[in-house]
């Protein structure tokens, strides 16, 4: 069971993480909104590790079935999110290499 101190520690961490998320995004140009939305969509794919733990500690058949679904969905979030973001960003890369465009 989660201890009360651990709980408050987690709250502190969550607050700092919220600021981090805010600061990292706050000066983003509009053209990167799509890749960034896709990129953060990939990052919450970390749900996969939670799903793995949930299935790994499941004891009853019901828990196993639901845990299995969680891992399938989480894994799809991870790979799909990565590939979509990668494909979107790939285009930025190509145009960045265009000759005659001095940085």
């Amino acid at each position: 069971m989660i201890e009360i101190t651990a709980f408050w520690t987690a709250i502190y961490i969550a607050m700092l993480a919220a600021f981090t998320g805010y600061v990292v995004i706050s000066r983003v140009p509009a053209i990167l909104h799509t890749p960034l939305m896709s990129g953060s969509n990939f990052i919450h794919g970390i749900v996969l590790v939670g799903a793995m733990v949930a299935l790994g500690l499941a004891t009853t058949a019901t828990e196993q079935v639901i845990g299995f679904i969680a891992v399938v969905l989480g894994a799809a979030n991870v790979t799909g999110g990565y590939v979509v973001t990668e494909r979107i960003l790939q285009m930025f890369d190509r145009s960045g290499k265009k000759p005659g465009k001095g940085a």
Partner: protein
Amino acid sequence: MVDLSFVIEPVYIVTIFFFIIGLQRMSHPLTARSGIVWAGAAMLIATLVTFFTPNLTNIALIAIAIVIGGGFGYIAAKRVGMTNMPQMVALYNGMGGGAAAAISAVVLLGPATAITGSLAVVGGLIGAVSFSGSLIAFLKLQGWMPSRPVTFAGQQIANMTVLVLAIVSGVFVILQPSWIPLSVSIYLPLFFILALGFGLLMTLPIGGADMPVVISMYNAFTGLAVALDGFSFATPNYAMIIAGVIVGAAGSLLTLRMANAMNRSLTNVLFGAFGATEEQAAQVSGSVKAIEADDVAVMLAYADRVIIVPGYGMAVAQAQQKVKELTDLLMSRGVQVKFAIHPVAGRMPGHMNVLLAEAGVAYDHLFDRDEVNPEFPSTDVVLVIGANDVVNPAAHRQGSPLFGMPILDVEQARNVIVLKRGQGKGFAGIENDLFYRDNTKMLYGDAQETVGKLVQALKKL
């Protein structure tokens, strides 16, 4: 097996560090590409060390599930066309939300305390709403269900009732009071059914034009649900908490930015049922005038300044390559060509930039609405390629459903050529006054074909 569980926490710390670096790099055009690689590497090591979790069983099942889910995600994402990327983001986001909801269910089936149980219920609610809501968004954008808002009488009361019932069931699941009707085990499935139902009902009245904002909001929701699930484990999973909260915060900010770009409040996006009602007695006068490609080519060839306004139609027709050809031809003749990019052109902010970048149009030819708007009066020809709502002057007219939306003032240009597939309305379902203006001519046809014709005609001149 050797107990390697001591590596989990250090690796999670590295993971979070890489995630933040990755996101930061993704926020700058020059480093964006490497950002996803950092984040991807982090995800990979985090997944691997999670296999070392103490007392982990069902390892074969976990591996099979990863192969199935991961395989599907990978193949589907590789196969879809660039135009369909927005709905793919919605789809994968929904899956993340579904995973979060399923984790909550497992936590609630096990021995949860009042605290962990409450966190799991809230996480489950948000995750389930994100799951069903994102799937509706996916279906609408994919065209597998009508993208127009679905409305009925008493809708908001019905939606709120479902939400309240879901919350009540959730409270019953945590507290399990003795006086409740029905057996306690009914309330957990009931809670999830109601939560899924609310996500569905909440998304139905939202029209396709607002979907980017909604997808971004559900993205933030999933992040939050993941963080809450991280809290609800017996030992808190800090990787999930931090990554989830970062996405929740960043996603919320991104959502507000997008709503701002359309000059709408989030409340209006969610409850406005935008585009559901036909505008009463359209006050448009004049007639729609068609023009041929050859005439347009001549106009363009002898213009000094041309501005191209791309929209979703260009994406659908995959016309960006031809547009790039056209741009090069015009520039070689000494015509100044600029691209005016409305923040919400296409189905997502930056959608047009991505497509044009793909075709090789240089960044310094793309201009934001604010930069380019003062230039329209001194522009000879504006070429509107498959854009509609973002150039609709109705936005300046009080009483129009579009009123207040910042638009590109293309009507101020000397000539406006609108490339359009047919006489249909824009995504918002509103008649476009621009098409009836005296300086506007319509060039009908598939955007790729039409621009191709323009290129051919220009080459002959």
